[in-house]
C-alpha cells in the first residue's frame, strides 16, 4: 500500500500540500465570489486596491413607509471588518443575526434590513474613485 501511495512522504510534506490546497481554494472563491484578494490564505496581499479598507457598508432599516440608514459605532468594527472581507449571502445573514443583539427592536420597528456592501476602485490614470455594490441582501428583521 505504501508503495502505491507514499503515506510517509505525504505526511512529511503535508504543510506544503495544505498551502497549495488553501491557496487554490482562496483563488477560486475570490475569483467567483466576494472574498477579498488579501485574505483567505491565497497570498494576494499587496496585489490590489480591493482591500477591506476600500470596502464599505450601508445598513438600511425598512418599515412599510420608511427606509432609514443605521449607523454602527466603532465597537462593532470587528464584525463589520469580517463582513467586508467576505460579504457572502451567508455572512450577511449571520451579520444580521448579530445586529439583532445590538439594536433594540420595538414592536413597531423595522420589518426588514437591507445590507449593501460596496467596493471602491480607481481610475488608473486620474485615480478618480468610484464604487459599486458587490453584494446586497434584504433580510427580514422581525417576524
Amino acid at each position, binding site marked *: 500500500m505504501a508503495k502505491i501511495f507514499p503515506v510517509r512522504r505525504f*505526511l*512529511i*510534506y*503535508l*504543510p*506544503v500540500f*495544505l*498551502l*497549495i490546497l*488553501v*491557496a487554490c481554494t482562496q*483563488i477560486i472563491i*475570490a*475569483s467567483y465570489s466576494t*472574498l477579498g*484578494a*488579501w*485574505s*483567505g*490564505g*491565497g*497570498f*494576494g*496581499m*499587496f*496585489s*490590489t*486596491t*480591493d482591500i*477591506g*479598507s476600500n470596502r*464599505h457598508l*450601508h445598513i438600511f432599516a425598512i418599515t412599510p413607509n420608511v427606509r432609514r440608514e443605521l449607523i454602527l459605532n466603532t465597537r462593532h468594527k470587528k464584525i463589520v*471588518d*469580517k463582513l467586508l*472581507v*467576505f460579504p457572502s449571502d451567508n455572512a450577511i445573514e449571520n451579520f444580521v443575526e448579530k445586529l439583532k443583539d445590538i439594536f433594540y427592536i420595538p414592536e413597531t420597528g423595522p420589518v426588514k434590513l437591507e445590507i449593501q456592501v*460596496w467596493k*471602491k*476602485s*480607481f481610475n*488608473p490614470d*486620474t*485615480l*478618480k*474613485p*468610484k*464604487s*459599486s455594490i458587490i453584494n446586497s441582501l434584504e433580510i427580514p428583521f422581525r417576524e
Partner: protein
Amino acid sequence: MNKKWSFSEFYSQLINTDLLDLSLRLTLLNLILIPVGDIKIRFLILLLSCVGLLFPAQLRNPRVWGLLTVFITLRLYISWPINDNHAYLLAYWCLAVTICLLTDDAKKHLAVNARYLIGFVFLFATIWKLILSPDYIDGTFFKINMLVDPRFEDFSRLVGGLSGEKFQELHQYVKQHVDGQLIGSLYLPEIPGRFLTVALFLTYFTVIVEFLVAVAFLWPLNKGLSKYRDYVLLFFCITVYSVATVEGFGWLLLAMGIVQVYQGRFRTRILYILVFALILFYREVPWVTILYNHF
C-alpha cells in the same frame, strides 16, 4: 568565573549552532516579538514560545510545537476570514516543525518543507499580481497604496517627491467616500510625474523580485537560480520590508529560510541573522521619517 565577551567566540558559537535550532529559535522569537491571536490564546502561544526558548530541552519537543500548531490554527479559525496571509504560513510552518521533529532526520525534512513553502508563497503572490489582480500591473495599486497606507506616507514624500500639501490633497481625493460615481465633480488633482514613476518602479520591482524568489526556491537544487536562492530571499527582505514593514512575515521567512542553508555556508547564515536584526531596526527606527525630516 568572569569571562570577557569576545567577538570571535560569539562568531564561533554562531557558526557552530545547529541550523535547525537556529530556525526554531528565530520562529519562537518572532512569536514573542509579535504576539499573535486574540486575548484568549495569545497568552498560551507566548507561554509555549518562552518555554521553547528558555529551556533548550524543550526546543525540539514535538509536543510544544504540536500545541503551538493547535493554538495558531485555532487563531486562524477564530479570526477567519480577516487573518493576514502570514498567519496561515505560520500555521503551516509550525505543523511542518511538529511533523519533522517526529522523523529521524528533522533538519533534512524541514529544509525541504521550508524551500517549498517559501517557493509556493512567492509563486501565489506572483500569480495574484500578474494574472488575477485587475489593478496591479498598471500601477494603480502602488499609486493608491503610497497615498493611503500610513507605512508608505513618508516614503511617498521622500522618494515620490510629494510636498506635504500635495500628499494631503491626493490622500483626501482617493480616500473620499463615494457611492457609485463622484457626482458633480470635475476636479482632478494633478499627479506629479516623479510619483507616478516611483509607483511604476515599485510595481515592477516587487513582482520581479517575488517571481525570482519563487523560481529560486522551486527550481531543482544546485541548478540555475536555485544556487542563489538565499541571496534572492535576503534581497527581498532587505528591500521590501524597509518600507512595507510587515515584520512578522519577514521574520518568519528568515526563520524558515535559515534551516535550508547549506551546512558549510557560514556567511549566509550570518546574513540571515543580520537581516532578522535589520527588520527589527526597520520596525523600531522610523528611518524614512528621519531622512524625510532631515532633507
